[in-house]
């Protein structure tokens, strides 16, 4: 037998297990209606695949999980979907959640079961998809999807099978091992195959289950495949040795660091119920639609373990056990330590419902008022996680979340050992659950507000950028307008006229010079071309005579002759072009001597000079008259535009400019009149 280690803390509550293992596991009569909750555990809610009114077969997938979280859900029996909507579920909040309600037809008509007894011939990835599609989830604790746990990408050395079932009253795993140990071993082999056949497979079990241990021993001995050895680790009964961390410490002596996953130590833990479900899903092709549930408590005349369809109302379970309602003091889901009190029995079971306790008054301690903590330290002694519950309690009460985290609140497994031993009856675990909830909520809020801040700042930045762009554009436009104005002012200004005329002349001269430069260049180019073609022609002729002299063959001679002809032609062309250029050159130079400024620019310059001179020569009154005429012309044009214009905005603009022009004209007119009178 394997060596086992001690864990800190722990308690020994009354076991109360015997009453429910007197009989073998029994089937339950098919309830008329089933409610399958869409969220079976913490995490994302599954999406329904069926519609109201649809007929479903037993084992048909009725809801698909969100990617990478949760498991698929299946119809527990054949029947008709009658509703998809909120229904109270077995949850401490007592809040309703979405359920698929199925009215059973009693035919128990299965889907085509896709059996894989040869699972070792399937690729791992395919098997993992199959496990997820067949809804296998952790049946021991929180219902974590098994496929995700078995898809570990770290090397695994130990597959640890949890058969501890340390909480009082619960015997679901015990009875499963007594009756179906071989099937569970097949489940171990499937998990082992998926984990790459780790070096060790160890079943951890408490010594209070001798029948289960015996059944396991027989089943292991009867196994044909001895290669993959399965060991038993039997240890003294103590609550809570079934916690993942505690079990790892008992079996390996290693302590799981705070916040670490077992896979980081090369360990994967699986509950026996989960492994049995795994075997059923793969080898028998039956998705997870039922589980073994303990129904016990003194308020029921019968106690026992039942093969329960997921979604069976708790009231049906209790009714089958002949519940005496008048004796019922409290209905508890789960064990007495970690379970929660249910507000009513009209709730459906979920995949993680391992036990229901219909306790009478003698089983539940009458509610004692909590008293102040006397700092006795019993809770710290009992804590399996080596925490200081009295300190945590103090900080949880005053909602000091940093201190709670500093005291490792998140290492608390909510086992309830501290509350159990507390002489002051302080509901310590409730404080810790509330504290964890508050911290989680705060973290979520913090994440959300950080995200909002980021988005707000991004938007702010974007708006600023837009504003900056707009400003830049506005400035550019203003600058352009100013330049235009300045140019116009220059044009209007008589004094500046000389300047602009000089600039115009300079520009025209530059242009003329550019044109003058090009014939010169052309001539140079042509001369160069002529010399080079002459040289080439000479060379070709030399080659030809040489070839004739050497008596080269006909084709070679022909090619040489062609080359010579081409060279001669090129030379001729270049000479011709040069002659043409010379002719035009002489013509243009003779023109230039006759009329030096004949091109358009020069003409414009001349005209501008003339007009300036004419203006200079005009008397002031004549100047005014000409200005007046120009203004009249502009006004007339504007009026014309105004008549054509339809857009009201533009019209307004035009009107205002017309009014301005009119004012200018009037001013000019009066002053010219005055001048005339003055003369």
């Amino acid at each position: 037998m394997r060596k086992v280690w001690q864990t800190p803390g722990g308690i020994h509550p009354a076991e109360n297990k015997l009453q429910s293992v007197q009989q073998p596991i029994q089937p339950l009569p098919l309830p008329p209606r089933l409610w399958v909750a869409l969220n079976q555990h913490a995490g994302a809610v599954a999406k329904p695949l069926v519609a109201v009114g649809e007929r479903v077969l037993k084992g048909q997938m009725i809801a698909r999980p969100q990617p990478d979280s949760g498991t698929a859900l299946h119809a527990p029996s054949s029947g008709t979907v009658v509703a998809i909507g909120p229904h109270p579920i077995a949850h401490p909040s007592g809040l309703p959640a979405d359920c698929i309600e199925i009215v059973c037809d009693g035919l128990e008509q299965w889907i085509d079961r896709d059996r894989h007894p040869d699972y070792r011939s399937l690729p791992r990835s395919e098997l993992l998809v199959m496990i997820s599609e067949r809804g296998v989830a952790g049946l021991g604790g929180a219902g974590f999807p098994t496929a995700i746990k078995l898809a570990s990408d770290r090397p695994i050395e130990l597959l640890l099978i949890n058969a501890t079932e340390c909480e009082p009253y619960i015997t679901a795993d015990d009875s499963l091992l007594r009756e179906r140990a071989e099937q569970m071993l097949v489940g171990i082999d499937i998990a082992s195959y998926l984990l790459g056949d780790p070096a060790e497979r160890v079943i951890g079990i408490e010594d209070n289950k001798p029948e289960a241990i015996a059944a396991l021993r027989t089943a292991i001995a009867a196994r044909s495949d001895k290669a993959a050895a399965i060991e038993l680790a039997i240890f003294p009964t103590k609550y809570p040795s079934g916690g993942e961390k505690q079990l790892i410490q008992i079996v390996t002596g290693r302590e799981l660091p705070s916040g670490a996953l077992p896979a980081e130590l090369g360990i994967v833990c699986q509950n026996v119920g989960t492994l049995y479900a795994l075997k059923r899903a793969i080898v028998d092709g039956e998705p997870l639609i039922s589980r073994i549930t303990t129904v016990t408590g003194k308020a029921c005349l019968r106690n026992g373990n039942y093969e329960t369809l997921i979604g069976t109302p708790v009231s049906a379970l209790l009714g089958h056990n002949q519940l005496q309602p008048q004796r019922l003091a409290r209905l508890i889901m789960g064990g007495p330590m970690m379970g929660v009190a249910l507000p009513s029995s009209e709730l459906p079971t979920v995949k993680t419902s391992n036990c229901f306790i219909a306790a009478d008054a003698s089983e539940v301690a009458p509610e004692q008022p909590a008293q102040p903590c006397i700092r006795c330290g019993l809770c710290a002694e009992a804590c399996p996680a080596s925490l200081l519950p009295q300190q945590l309690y103090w900080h949880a009460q005053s909602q000091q979340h940093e201190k709670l985290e500093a005291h490792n609140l998140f290492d608390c497994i909510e086992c309830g050992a501290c509350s159990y031993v507390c002489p002051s009856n302080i509901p310590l675990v409730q404080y810790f659950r509330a504290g964890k909830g508050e911290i989680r909520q705060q973290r979520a809020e913090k994440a959300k507000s950080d995200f909002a801040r980021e988005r707000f700042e991004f938007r702010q930045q974007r708006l600023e950028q837009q504003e900056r762009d707009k400003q830049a554009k506005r400035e550019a436009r203003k600058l352009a307008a100013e330049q235009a104005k300045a140019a116009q002012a220059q044009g209007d200004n008589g004094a500046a006229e000389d300047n602009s005329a000089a600039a115009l002349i300079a520009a025209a001269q530059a242009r003329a010079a550019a044109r003058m430069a090009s014939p010169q260049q052309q001539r140079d180019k042509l001369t160069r071309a002529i010399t080079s073609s002459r040289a080439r022609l000479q060379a070709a002729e030399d080659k030809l005579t040489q070839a004739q002299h050497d008596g080269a063959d006909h084709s070679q001679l022909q090619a040489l002759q062609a080359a010579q002809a081409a060279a001669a032609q090129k030379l001729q062309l270049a000479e011709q072009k040069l002659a043409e250029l010379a002719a035009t050159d002489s013509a243009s130079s003779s023109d230039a001597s006759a009329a030096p400024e004949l091109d358009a620019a020069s003409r414009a310059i001349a005209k501008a000079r003339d007009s300036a001179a004419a203006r200079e020569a005009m008397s002031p009154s004549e100047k005014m008259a000409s200005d007046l005429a120009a203004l009249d012309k502009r006004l007339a044009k504007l009026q014309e535009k105004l008549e054509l214009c339809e857009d009201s905005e533009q019209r307004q603009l035009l009107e205002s400019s017309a009014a301005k022009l009119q004012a200018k004209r009037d001013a000019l007119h009066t002053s010219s009149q005055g001048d005339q009178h003055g003369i």
Partner: protein
Amino acid sequence: MQPLWELVVANPIAAAVLALVGLALLFGALLGFAAERFRVEGDPIVEQIDALLPQTQCGQCGHPGCRPYAESIAAGEAINKCPPGGQATINALAALLDLPAPELDDEHGEASEVKKVAYIREDECIGCTKCIQACPVDAILGSAKMMHTVIAAECTGCDLCVEPCPVDCIDMLPVETGIQGWQWQLPPRPGLIASDRQPHSGAAA
């Protein structure tokens, strides 16, 4: 040199004064150097205050967003003007700034218990884009003459988009806290002595 040295030896008071002056100069230089060398850019207290504000960006505090309010708190403004943050934020700010924690100033609005999220009745939306322009965190999706919708996960519930909507098709709905958002509550506090009157509790350990 000689007379100064003799003065120091002969006169312990002068020696002490000299020593102190020397030390003062030395440490003054050291502090001056440190102040230059390790100067902090920006105002770290504003960052810390901003981190405590709820980032709803609703402007109820009278500032265009949480950060401007953080800046003016750093400059001495009252810390009780943020209704979305409520008393929890005021307490956190008071702890940070070492101030007494006042009650929420209800001139700026009342703290609401329920979180809200904007919802656009989409068939009534005319696609005017006015709400998009109002949303401080870009949580509304849509374009001109197209149906608009709110990205619920990104909406801070600030209420700013409701007013600009010309057809009043935006509602502020309470955020659903189903089973996913549920959490355990703290049990009632035990009294100091056992004979204290207890509020009756239905909760069990």
